[in-house]
């Protein structure tokens, strides 16, 4: 393997993020169990386990809902970017909560000495042909397997080994897992418990996530139709249209995006894809003289797209020019790390 393993790079922000996350999960479970025990005191150990099954199940559902909402929320409103920063740890914790839910379900069957019933339920092929009566636990198990795959490949080692586009495509399986979870609940507990809270929870959760994704996708669609000048270069506007220490994003005719940054009088164009996780660099800022990705803070020099030492990531750069007071960019990328920034006259600012 050509990719080296590096342990998780902890910093104060990650520790704070994880502390809030774990505290939130513990508080949710404690409050859920305490309230449920007040409303419906358990008469047996199986009943007590059942409460924990419900607590961990709803907790995992809400966590998954939040995780899937973070991406589009961050695209729609920059204030959500800090939540995106350590989303992978959120995902790993969700897997552990969901795995606890599954393990407690097995414990419930063991307590009732009915473990063979669980095996019969899962292996009854005829029931897989039904809609009502479908073995809903199989849907939960399938979702758990996807969550396991996500958690197991969440480390940066796998991100580098698989490459960001493949890793990202793999992690899009989470959408299917969410649909499986919704149907796991709809064909499971919703069939024999009449409380309106369960359908409401599913409608609110799934409705919110899908609405956010569709709205964010629709907004971005407008940006995806690039138009070129007569010689194929892309107009990015006048230098003063590019915010200082910020960028405008132009779209190449093929649909890939280019971020055109300005740092004072220096203008440079780089691919909009961060080398780390393909984050939208053009939505970032120039901090300490470097383009900084809004997702995880990876940095690159504006002049040549190279990460400052000791880091080794490099971005594809694009030739830029100023013609008739308008910044134009060549849509054909230069090899990663090629110096390509230009200096504009102060009169144009």
């Amino acid at each position: 393997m050509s990719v080296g393993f590096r342990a998780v790079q902890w910093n104060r922000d990650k520790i704070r993020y994880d502390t809030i996350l774990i505290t939130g999960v513990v508080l949710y479970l404690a409050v859920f169990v305490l309230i449920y025990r007040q409303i419906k005191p358990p008469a047996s150990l199986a009943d007590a386990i059942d409460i924990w099954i419900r607590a961990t199940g709803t907790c995992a559902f809400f966590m998954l809902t939040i995780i899937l909402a973070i991406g589009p929320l961050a695209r729609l409103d920059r204030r959500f970017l800090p939540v995106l920063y350590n989303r992978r740890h959120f995902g790993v914790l969700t897997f552990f909560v969901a795995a606890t839910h599954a393990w407690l379900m097995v414990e419930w069957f063991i307590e009732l000495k009915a473990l063979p019933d669980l095996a019969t339920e899962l292996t009854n092929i005829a029931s897989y042909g039904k809609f009502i009566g479908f073995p809903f636990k199989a849907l939960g198990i399938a979702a758990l397997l996807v969550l396991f795959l996500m958690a197991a490949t969440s480390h940066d080692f796998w991100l580098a080994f698989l490459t960001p586009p493949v890793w990202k495509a793999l992690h899009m399986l989470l959408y299917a897992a969410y649909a499986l979870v919704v149907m796991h609940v709809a064909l499971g507990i919703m069939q024999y418990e009449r409380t309106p809270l369960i359908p409401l929870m599913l409608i609110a959760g799934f409705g919110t996530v899908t609405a956010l994704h569709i709205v964010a996708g629709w907004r971005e669609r407008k940006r995806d139709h690039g138009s070129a000048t007569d010689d194929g270069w892309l107009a990015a506007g006048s230098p003063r249209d590019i915010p200082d220490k910020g960028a405008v994003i132009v779209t190449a005719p093929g649909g890939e995006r280019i971020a055109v940054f300005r740092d004072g009088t220096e203008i440079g164009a780089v691919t909009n894809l961060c080398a780390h996780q393909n984050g939208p660099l053009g939505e970032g800022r120039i901090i300490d003289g470097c383009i900084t990705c809004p997702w995880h803070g990876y940095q690159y020099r504006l002049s040549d797209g190279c990460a400052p030492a000791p880091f080794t990531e490099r971005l594809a750069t694009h030739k830029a020019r100023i013609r008739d007071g308008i910044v134009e960019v060549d849509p054909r990328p230069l090899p990663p790390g090629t110096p390509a920034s230009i200096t504009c006259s102060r009169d144009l600012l």
Partner: protein
Amino acid sequence: MTRKHRFAHRIVWPALTVFVALAFTMSLVLRPPPDPPAQSAETKPESGP
């Protein structure tokens, strides 16, 4: 995100929404009527939690 990922997002979410909305509505409409109260106090659901 790459262009392909953005395209996939725009296809996947509407398709997933339609599929889940249909399946969820069916599961809500077709669910069996609740057990009579006396019976439900004595029996546990067959399929477990």
